[in-house]
């Protein structure tokens, strides 16, 4: 039966060409948009996670309340112990301490007097400990504009914008002027060994990256950290799993009334990221639904036209004794085959385009430079992402729309009057 139908589809190209073409193009578009949107969202989530939020992060409750003020006097203490516990309890994530702090960067002249000075937003990141993945997830090999990566805690990287503003050269000493975790005035010397460009809009305009041990020495924060960030091993953000983890952790640590007890936040809890996560999920569902409806209507229309063209054939089959149900079912099987072929071709085409955009990307630098907000971290270049779901997601609209379109068009079969068949055939 199926072999017979396939032969029919191949031999009678007018029966298959346009439906396959429509399904192919539509599935290709769905695959590409899904891959592009997923790429943008995952890239944005990962960039945001790397720079500030982690996929989850742990901090004290008091720190969480005033987190906009970077209150390091409310930081977590004994972070090694907390990290060991987190690694034991949640092994699907890797955990890393982070210190976020602000201050002034002072550049001395040869006499030690101030030559240049400017505000700095600094991150103490665990770059140098054994097994750290921070250089990898920050992609610093690619983002390094000049110089080299830090090798000791007293070496720092500055954003190219900040280094240019302070007219700094590699190897120069800069003095951080800031506050310790006890709010005492502090100064600390660092050596600039490299400059970087994150390509994440305005977020790195005043940024300095330093190893966490350097930050701890500068800010008198021995064994302390502002936050502990957790990342999934795959680096892909999974909202439901992350929210469940946050809920479980906070339930386990919720009994204490101590304002310095740890609490966990998921990526969606920070900087309106929840809206972005929900938008991303909703956008994909809406996009699929819209495409499904459009394709269904197109194929319905094509089925109706096809029905007219095959009016005689269907009449003949009915006149020869095939039941209306048999004819209807054979047309649906035929549409499944057409949908399947179209989806396979569309998926191949869509994956090809998505893969191309994954490698090349869409450069949006000029538009991003106009942004001034640093709350939402977004890449200057939008990349698509080929994910495993792209290999099968096209089958849902591709086959379903073809079948539904055929089912609606095929209803005409049941309207044929058997008594009229021979008259129609004679005509």
């Amino acid at each position, binding site marked *: 039966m199926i072999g017979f139908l396939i032969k029919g589809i191949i031999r009678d190209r007018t029966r298959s060409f346009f439906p396959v073409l429509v399904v192919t193009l539509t599935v290709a578009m769905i695959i590409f948009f899904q891959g592009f949107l997923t790429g943008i969202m995952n890239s944005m989530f990962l960039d945001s996670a790397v720079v500030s939020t982690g996929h989850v992060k742990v901090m004290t409750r*008091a720190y969480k309340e005033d987190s906009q003020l970077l209150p390091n006097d409310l930081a977590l203490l004994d972070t090694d112990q907390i990290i060991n516990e987190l690694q034991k309890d949640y092994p699907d994530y890797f955990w890393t301490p982070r210190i976020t702090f602000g201050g002034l960067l*002072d550049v001395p002249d040869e006499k030690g007097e*101030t030559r240049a000075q400017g505000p700095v937003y600094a991150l103490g990141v665990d770059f140098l400990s054994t097994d750290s993945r921070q250089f990898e997830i920050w992609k610093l090999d690619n983002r390094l504009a000049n110089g080299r990566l830090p090798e000791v805690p007293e070496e720092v990287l500055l954003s190219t914008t900040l280094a240019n503003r302070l007219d700094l050269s590699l190897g120069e000493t800069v003095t951080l002027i800031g*506050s310790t975790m006890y709010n*005492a*005035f502090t*100064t600390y010397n660092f050596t600039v060994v490299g400059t970087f460009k994150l390509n994440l809009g305005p977020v790195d305009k005043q940024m300095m990256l330093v190893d966490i041990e350097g930050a701890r020495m500068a800010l008198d924060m021995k064994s302390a950290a502002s936050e502990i960030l957790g990342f999934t091993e795959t680096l892909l953000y999974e909202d439901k799993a992350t929210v469940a983890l946050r809920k479980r952790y906070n339930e386990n640590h919720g009994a204490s009334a101590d304002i310095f007890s740890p609490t966990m936040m998921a990526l969606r809890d920070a900087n309106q990221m929840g809206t972005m996560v929900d938008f991303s999920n909703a956008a994909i569902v809406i996009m699929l639904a819209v495409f499904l409806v459009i394709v269904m209507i197109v194929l319905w229309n094509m089925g109706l036209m096809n029905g007219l063209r095959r009016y005689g054939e269907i009449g003949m089959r009915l006149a020869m004794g095939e039941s209306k149900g048999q004819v209807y079912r054979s047309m649906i099987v035929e549409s499944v085959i057409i949908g399947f072929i179209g989806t396979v071709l569309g998926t191949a085409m869509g994956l090809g385009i998505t893969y191309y955009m994954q490698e090349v990307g869409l450069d949006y630098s000029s538009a991003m430079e106009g942004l001034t907000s640093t709350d939402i971290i977004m890449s200057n270049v939008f990349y698509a992402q080929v994910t495993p779901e792209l290999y099968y997601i096209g089958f849902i609209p591709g086959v379903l729309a073809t079948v539904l379109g055929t089912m609606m068009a095929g209803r005409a079969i049941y309207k044929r009057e058997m008594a009229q068949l021979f008259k129609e055939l004679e005509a």
Partner: protein
Amino acid sequence: MKMRRTMVFLILAFAIGQDGAISVQEIIQAMDNNLNAKSRVITSKMVVHGRRSSRTIESKNWVVGTNLAFTEYLSPPREAGTKMLKLDDKLWTYSPQTDRVIQISGHMLRQSVMGSDMSYNDMMEDRPLTDLYDATLEGSVEIDGRDHWILFLEAKVKGLSYPKRRAWIDKEWFLPMKEELYAKSGKLLKTSTMDGIKKVQDRWFPSRFIFRDELKRNSKGTEWVINEIEFNAEIPEGRFSKARLRK
């Protein structure tokens, strides 16, 4: 000098004896006389009560008039060797870790000194109150069995950190036992109290101040405990040079 101070006290005692006839200006003047001197050398400790723990920072200060001041921090080890120099309206700090002399200016003056409830601005503004404020007497009150005047002071010069302040002044000691420091809008910014009043070189002087930054949530305040104080000591001029910071 001693003679002049005795005369001031006699005049004040006489004035008070005249059924409270002492003027507000005289109260402020007497208060300034107690708190300010031609020069002073102080060894003190600052106990900063944080939300988690308390830290004690010991220092030695050399002060001449209101324009020259030099501070050297003695402990804890991280702060030891840090020095500060005030020359007129300029403030420099030196840290041995960085071997840098850095001028503190602009918004940095609003930062806390060593994590305490005092800012650099608080350290800078130690001119006599009579030069800075117009005062009005709001009334009298008894606190802990001692009589106090309540004075309200409003700035007569621009640019002060606290354009308004209210002081509870002990009628015998001529010291502001309690002060509330306000912004121009009337918002309470800081409070200070003092205790352990002792007679030091013919003047009443507290052995402990307690400052509290009211803008810091859950602030537990900072104690400034005077271990030793010597008024009108001879201080060589070389003490107040930038070169001295690195020595």
